[in-house]
Each structure stands twice: as C-alpha cells, then as structure tokens.
C-alpha cells in the first residue's frame, strides 16, 4: 500500500520535475527575452522621437511590430509634455527682469497623439519641438505562458498583473520640421 502511494507520489513528482519545471523555466526565459525585446524597442522608439522631433505613423508601426514579434499583446502609453514658453516670456516685460519666469508644461496623451497619427491632418505625423519631453511605457495585456503556469500553482489575481513592462522618457533635442 505504502509502495503504491510512494509510486504515485513519485510519478507526480517526476511529471512536475520533468515536464512542468522545464516548461516553467523555458516560459520564464521566454519572458526574459520578451522583456529584453520590449526594452530595446521602447528605448529605440523614444530615442528616435527625441532626436528627430517627429512621431510618425511608420515609426509607431515599426514599434508595434517589434513588440508583436514577442507573441504577446501590449498596452502602449505615450505622453508628450509640451513646453509652453509664453507664460515665462510674458513675465519679462517692459524693463527687463531679474527673475526668470517658469516655463509651463502641459501634457497630451496616447489617445490624442493617436488621433493625429491616424488622421490625414499633418500627414500622420506629430511634431515636437526642442525642450518638450516625450515618454512611452509598455506593459503586456495577455497572460504569458509563464503567468498561466504560475497561476496554476499559486493564483495571482488582479487587473494589472503584467510581468513584461518597459518605459523610457527624455527631453526632445530637435524641433521636427
């Protein structure tokens, strides 16, 4: 009787060790690689925008297809902080000032940027100027195999349970023409 129990236990253990453990390890590595790809794609996309001053439809599509190559689906958030020098300029009036006025930044977000990229207005380009700040963050929306396997053993619940995420931001260094 004991032998049977031990054998069953051994079989279960072996299955776990020989199939599920390698599967989990491989799935984890796949996520690592995906993480790497996503990191690189995000940094490249943001840096390209920062140095050219233009967000183009083709650049964005390239970014999406780079992300897509990992086999997951992603949620992309973009933000442009637009520098408005006018309030600072207005502080310097008639006689020259010893105080510098502060520049004001106002933000526009993914949906606003996308509506311009997708429309025919501005040739599907969103132009930035020197001094603006551009940032993008990405996280996966599907459950990757590694997440599914983990859920099998210990359930991770909640809406924002992503394991692949990347973000990058920086000052725009050229005015898009």
């Amino acid at each position, binding site marked *: 009787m004991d032998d049977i129990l031990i054998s069953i236990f051994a079989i279960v253990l*072996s299955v776990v*060790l020989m199939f599920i453990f*390698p599967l989990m390890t491989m799935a984890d590595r796949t996520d690592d690689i995906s993480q*790497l790809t996503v*990191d690189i794609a995000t940094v490249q996309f943001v840096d390209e925008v920062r140095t050219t001053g233009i967000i183009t439809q083709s650049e964005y599509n390239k970014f999406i297809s780079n992300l897509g190559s990992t086999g997951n689906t992603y949620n992309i958030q973009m933000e442009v902080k637009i520098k408005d020098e006018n309030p600072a300029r207005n502080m310097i009036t008639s006689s020259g000032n010893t105080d510098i006025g502060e520049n004001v930044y106002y933000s526009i977000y993914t949906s606003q940027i996308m509506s311009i990229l997708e429309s025919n207005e501005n040739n599907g380009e969103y*132009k930035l*100027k020197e001094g603006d700040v551009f940032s993008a963050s990405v996280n996966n929306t599907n459950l990757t195999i590694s997440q599914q396997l983990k859920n099998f053993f210990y359930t991770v619940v909640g809406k924002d349970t992503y394991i692949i995420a990347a973000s990058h931001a920086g000052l725009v260094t*050229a005015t898009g023409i």
Partner: protein
Amino acid sequence: MKIQSFAVIFIIIILPISLVFASYTQNRVETINLQTRYDSKLNDATYDALKAYQLNSFNSDTSDLTNAKIRDIKASASTFFNSMASGFSELGYTKSTLQNYVPALVYTMYDGYYIYSPYKNTWDDETNEKHWEDKSYHDGDELYGLKPYVYYSCRYQKLGKYDVTITYSLDNYIQIQGYVVNRGRTETISQSGYLLSIANDNTSDGVYYDETSGKVYYNGQEIGEESSLKENVYVDGKYIKGCEYIKKNGIKYYLDKNNDLEQSYSGNVFSVINGKSNIQTAITEMEFYGNEVGSENLLLHDAPIMKSVPCKNMGTYKYYLDFDENYNGKSDCFDFPCYRGSYIIVKVDQYNNKEALENIEDEIEHNTNAKNYYIEAWNLANFIKNYEIDDIEISNIVEENRSQYTETEEGAYHTQGKIFNFDNIESPTSNFNTHRIEVIKHSIERNLSIAISNFNAYSSVDFKMPKLKETDWDKIMNNISIISFLQGVNIGGKIYNGYAVVTNTKNEDIVMEDSIYIKDNNAIFHRITEENLPTGSIGIYNVNIERRTAQDDSGNNVYYLPVEGTLSYDSIVTQNKISKTSNQTISEYVKGLDDDLKKLYYTALGRERYGLYRQKLTISPDE
C-alpha cells in the same frame, strides 16, 4: 532503475543547464540594457554640450567671430565631459579619464567643421629652442583639443580655363577662389554669395534684377527696402525699448534716436560689445578740436553752402562739425537728422564730387539688406556664367592627392551633368545640392576616420569609425550639429561603440528656411507653414525672439527679449496646424502663398541672410 532515480538524474542534468542558461540570459539582458542606457546618456551629454554652445553664443556679442567661436566650442566640449562624468560615473569622474573613451567630437558648422580630438604637439627645432626651460608644452606631447577648421571645399580644374576651389555651406552660400583664364589672360578671382535661380523677367521664378530701374524681384515679388526695424537692447546697464537697428556682417548697429546713452549725441549709431556701447562716430569732440586741420566751405547736394566748417581728415573719411544746424530737417538731402554738434562724414575722394557718403544712419532707416541679398545672388550667377565656371562637372575635381577624379562605384562623387545648372538650382534634388552634400559628407567622413584611427595611437582600445546612418546625415546637412563618439567601454561581454548626433536648431550662424517667423498685427509669432496664416506685419529671425541676459547698473543679471510677442499655439508651441505636406520643401510651399506673405517672407529671409557674419577671403593679386 526506479523512476525516482530518473528524476534525480534528470534534476542533476537539467538544473545546472537551466541555471547557466538563466544567468546567461540575465547577463545579456543587462548588457543590452546598459547599451541602451549608454546610448541615451551619450545623447543627453551631447545635447547638454549643444545647449551650452547655444546659450554662450546667444549671450555673446562676438559669438560669430572665429576666436569667440573656438572659445564657445571649447566650453561646450567641457560641458560634454562634465555631463558625461555625471552620467557615466562607472567610468570615472575626470575629464582626462573620460577622454580615453571619446575618440572625437565633431562640431559641424556653417561652412566647415571642427574636430575635437587628441593630437601630437609637434615643434620644429626653431620653436623648440625658442622656448624657455619651464615651458608647459613640449614637443611630442599628446594634447586633447580642437584641430584646425576644415572647410567643406572642393577643387576643380580644367586646363586652360580655370583652377578654382569652391567652398560650400549648409545652405546655398558658396565662395569661389582661384584662377580663371579670361580672354587669354589669367585672372585671380574671389567671389562669394548665395546661389539662387535666375529669372528672365520679373514675373517668373528666380531672381530678376532690372539694372536700369534698380528694382529686384524674387519669384515675382519686388523686394524693396524695409524701414526702421526695431529691437529692444540692454546696453550700459540701461534698457532701450524699440531701438532702430540694422545687422551688418553679424554686428547690430543701433540708432540712439532719443539720446538714451549718456556719452552719445542723439542720432548717433552704436553697437554693443559685452553689454557696453561702442559708439560709431570714431572721434569725440575733444579729439576733433585737438586735431582739426582747419575749416572749409562745404556744399553738399542742393543744401545751402556752409561756410568755414571745421573739418578733419581721418583715414578715408573727412569729418565736418555742423555747429549751425544747417542740415537739421534737410531730409531731401540727407535722410538722417543732423543736429547741433553732429558730425557729417564725407568720404574724401567723394568730397570732390560734392557727394556725401551714405552713412549707416541712413541704412538703419532704409534697410536694404534684403534687396542686396538678391542682387548679390544675381551678380554671383552672372559671374559664374561669364567666367564659364558653370560648366564644372565632377570629372573636373582634383582630389586630395592632386590627381583628377574618375568616377567609380566607391568614389565619393556621383553627380551627373553640370553642377551649376541654374534651371532648378534651388531644388533639393538639383545637381548643385546633390554635389554639395557629397562634398560635405566626403570631407567629414575622411577627416573623421583619420582622427578616429589616429586615436588608436593614444589608446589601448582598438577604435573603429562607426558608419553613420543616412538619417543622421540628414540631420547633419540640415543645421549645425554636434557628433559625439564613445567607444571602448566594457558593458559586460561586449565593448560599447556608439555615437550621437544632435542638431542645433537655434543659432546665429545660419538662417534656414524655417528660421523665419511671421509676426502678425497682434504680436503673435507664426511659422510660415501655419494653416490660414493671417497677414503679418514683419518676418522675424527666430533667434531674435529668444531670451537674453545682460547686467544692470548694480551688476545683477537681468533678462530681456529683443523682440516681444507670443508664440503661436498652432505652429510653434505645438505644430498641430501645419498645412505644408511632408514631401514639400518650405520654399515650394511659400510659392503657393499670398503675395503679401511671400514678400514678407522673402524679404526677411534675404535681410537676415545678408546680415550674417561671413568671413570673406579677399585675394588681391596686386598686393
């Protein structure tokens, strides 16, 4: 064997493999993360360097002169290394440590470029002997610094016709120097100017100059004079609002109409050097009285004769002191007011013709910079045609090794046909522009690869010149920029080899087509490409709307705006309402605008380009 044993053996085999694999992947992830982080940091440090150059050049009145430019570039390079030191703390904090990883910094300027890289200090015996014992530099020292300026130039030769060197620039400005054979005689030539298309009449595209009427047209628009451009200026600790000025050869001359400056007379002209006024009448009343040569009767145009006017010779000018206010209000003779105590400057050789020299006060009130820009272009085009330099092709190129260029696939130049084909010379795809880009690219690539390969002599790391992408070349051709290289840093299993290109869109060295903003009647600045652009009042150079610093009487820093106004939210703060399509150039776009806007734009572009400082090399065979 029992199944448990299988499991144990399996674990023994798989576990190490899995661990090694995991750590390898982790390593790669870190390496690539580090690489992308370094890319960003290098970019940021280069941008910091550029910002330093921008700020220094905006707040200096001499920034366009060569030695001041060298000073600004050296300061900018220091900023680069400081910024690197804070960004790359892994490498070390000092400039000299970081220099081991930076083979070159390239500052591409308007008509040439500087390379900041190490070099060997070489002295000939004579210099070596001349120096005293405790000299700070020695023969054979390895120094890190700016190498001499290299022009974007190319030499062309056709036996029996010409042997000229043409220096190109980031826009259509060229300088031609060398020899031409004209009607059997060899002549030395030195000519410079902007290249524009030439029109056959005053309605077609291009420049048309009617020499009999003195009128000049560009793309069908008559380019006239502008009256009294105004700008705010902070000088001698004093803020003068709306001071009339003209920019000539990079220097702004202001008219002190209301006697705002203590030591000048009203109506005097001054320029500003480091916040101090430099009054343009070369002599003071004291100097005048000490050296006057006597008095003369003076008759200028149809003005009443002035008897016994004290006068003095100074160089090529003769100064007269107008005590009796004879010229006050005589605007039909002179366009400038001439009050008691003003000096009338008369050129000695012209005095005999009883003609007064048009002076700078007159130019301020009637700015003809724009007109002169187009006339210069007209004259240059005619010069090129008359001297038959317009038949230059790439087969006439003389290479660095003095051999004639023959086109091969690996060669640097591929433009087919005549380079100076005036039919479409302004188009970005014209032979002139294609060739200009080839010359600039070849020159930078060649010298840069030499600088980087020479760096190997000073470093233990093997440096290689990375290939710049086409998109990076586009940036370099568009405006003055900084290219920085960082190599040899260990990033875990790999050696970092990266570069960054950052362009400077606001500088006083170049007026690009998008540098002109239109100021409307409500004092709002717009880009020329804005949708439904209201009729403007004047075209403004975008650098003039930037904030400046100065010092007030008590030495406090103050900030002022040379030109006040609000930036348009549709085309400058954001570019959401731009009606130019992306495959259109700005000049093509402007052709489709209203006549008023076209005129404003062409006038402002011409005025600002003509006012820039351009180093002119004059070759005079007689001297």
